[in-house]
């Protein structure tokens, strides 16, 4: 794959959500480059992930810790385990820069997380910054902007 087609990019974003819904977390993590970040801002239109608070700003090490933790026998907040469900609009390709090897998509979505008898609904926009490494698409940055980013939430335990 020298430069991905629009369809390949869209399929990739949809596939990422499916891996999460099916708890295929290791395959999911493999979609990220080694220097990738997963960012969930706390403020509307936030531009600085470091000096301003964020809900999440995780490098691959932190993401890996989360994935390992979900498997742990003493991870009490996951007894019983949470489940999640994504409903995506068709990802829109905001920019494709073959020379720079960078593709940016915009995906409005609803995300549901459940545990015990509780079911929480979140609405968000996912922005994926993708790149091709060794012939396959990878995520450099996934940014998830919640519509109500500064609201008071209970536990959000999985990945949007």
């Amino acid at each position, binding site marked *: 794959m020298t430069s991905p087609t629009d369809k390949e990019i869209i399929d990739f974003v949809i596939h990422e959500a499916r891996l999460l819904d099916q708890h295929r977390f290791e395959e999911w993590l493999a979609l990220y480059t080694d220097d990738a970040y997963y960012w969930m801002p706390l*403020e509307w239109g936030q531009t600085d992930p470091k000096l301003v*608070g964020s*809900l999440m700003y995780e490098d691959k090490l*932190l993401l890996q810790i989360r994935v*390992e933790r979900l498997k*742990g026998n003493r991870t009490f907040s996951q007894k019983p385990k949470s489940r999640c469900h994504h409903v995506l609009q068709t990802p829109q390709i905001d920019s494709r820069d073959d020379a720079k090897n960078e593709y940016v998509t915009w995906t409005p979505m609803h995300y549901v997380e459940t545990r015990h008898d509780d079911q929480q609904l979140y609405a968000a926009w996912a922005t994926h910054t993708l790149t091709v490494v060794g012939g396959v698409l990878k995520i450099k940055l996934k940014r998830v902007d919640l519509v109500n980013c500064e609201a008071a939430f209970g536990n959000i335990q999985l990945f949007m």
Partner: protein
Amino acid sequence: MARYRDNVEAVRNLVRPAEVHRDVYIDDEVFQLEMEHLFANTWVYIGHDSQVPNPGDYFGTTIGLQPVLMVRHTDQSVKVLFNRCPHKGTRITTETCGNTGKFFRCPYHAWSFKTDGSLLAIPLKKGYENTGLEQSHAGQGMTPVRHVHNYRGFVFAKINDFGQGFEEFFGESLSSFDNMIDRSPVGKLEVAGLPLRYMHNCNWKMLVENQTDTCHPMVAHESSAGTAVNVWKNAPPGTRKPMAVEIFAPFMSPYEFFENMGIRVWPNGHGHTGVHHSIHSDYSAIPGYFEKMVAAYGEERAKHILGENRHNTVYFPNLMIKGPIQLIRLFKPLAPNKTLVESYTFRLVDAPDVLLERTQMYNRLINAPTSVVGHDDLEMYERAQEGLHVDANQWVNVQRLYDPAEPVDVTAETNGTTEWQMRNQFHAWQKFMTMSM
């Protein structure tokens, strides 16, 4: 039937020297009495004055369940007003913070008030002539919270005339604020952006107690901090230890580490962990920071300020601060089984940005609704909130390292795994609950 209202004895009996009755956590009437007495008789944290830098700036929060506004008045002083129109009760501001200009204007009938709350104007004022409005409560304008104190930028308020003055209430415990503020080379803090807001289905006091519970990290946080340490073990040798691992790893320290760190109790329910060292002691030095501190304070004082590594300081009833990383957590009661936790971060004015970067990282790794460490703790509180409904045992035990001769309302230092600070809080709870009954 009321069991606790107008029954001082019954309220007092909820707290024994080393046990607390479950009604303190689950009973609606006790919760209501906490709002009326405990939160009115104590100095409650409102906000930091950097949130209202200019005249007319306001910031909305609560004392117990009552909405209040912190506002910068035209004379630069900070006022705290009940957020209620004196006319029909309408909440004056719709946004949490903003600037109101020279006066507040009620959106319902346009009564307006100066930023100290006093009545400025009423449309068609003639209609109130000879009605005695001046003598009515409404005619006085927005009611100010009577007692307000600004301590080096941190604003506290007390609703009742009962209880103690600010200095007497906090006493020596203010040293934890001093240390957090002195960590800025110019002795100044600024709130850095929005707080993380985390909704907990449990009683607010469970969170306060947990701040000095040093027997739980290595157990409850094995899943988060323990996993972090294990994942890090697989890093290629020679890799620089990431800031995140520096933050996680000390949570997994053995009991001995926490025993030796020490706990200090102060009168009126205040106290702190980390007398000798803490989970914040071994963070990497930030280039250029110590030099700035030496230039500002001289070497000896700079070393003294940075050598103090208090872990969690509890300001009774519902505030916790972490001086070494400049963040505070406020435990806002909403119902017996519902608490809003707000975690605010601060910038040390004139210090390197990396310090703030670490503060923000700590806050998101430990205190966010999306944080794994937070998930560990909340799971325990919610299980406790359910478990307390077991009738077979109606008492919560806080007996660890209890000595029947233990004095109350004193300053003392002791073993870091004691539950003395929790007992200290419940003694204060009992005192300030019944003071105005």
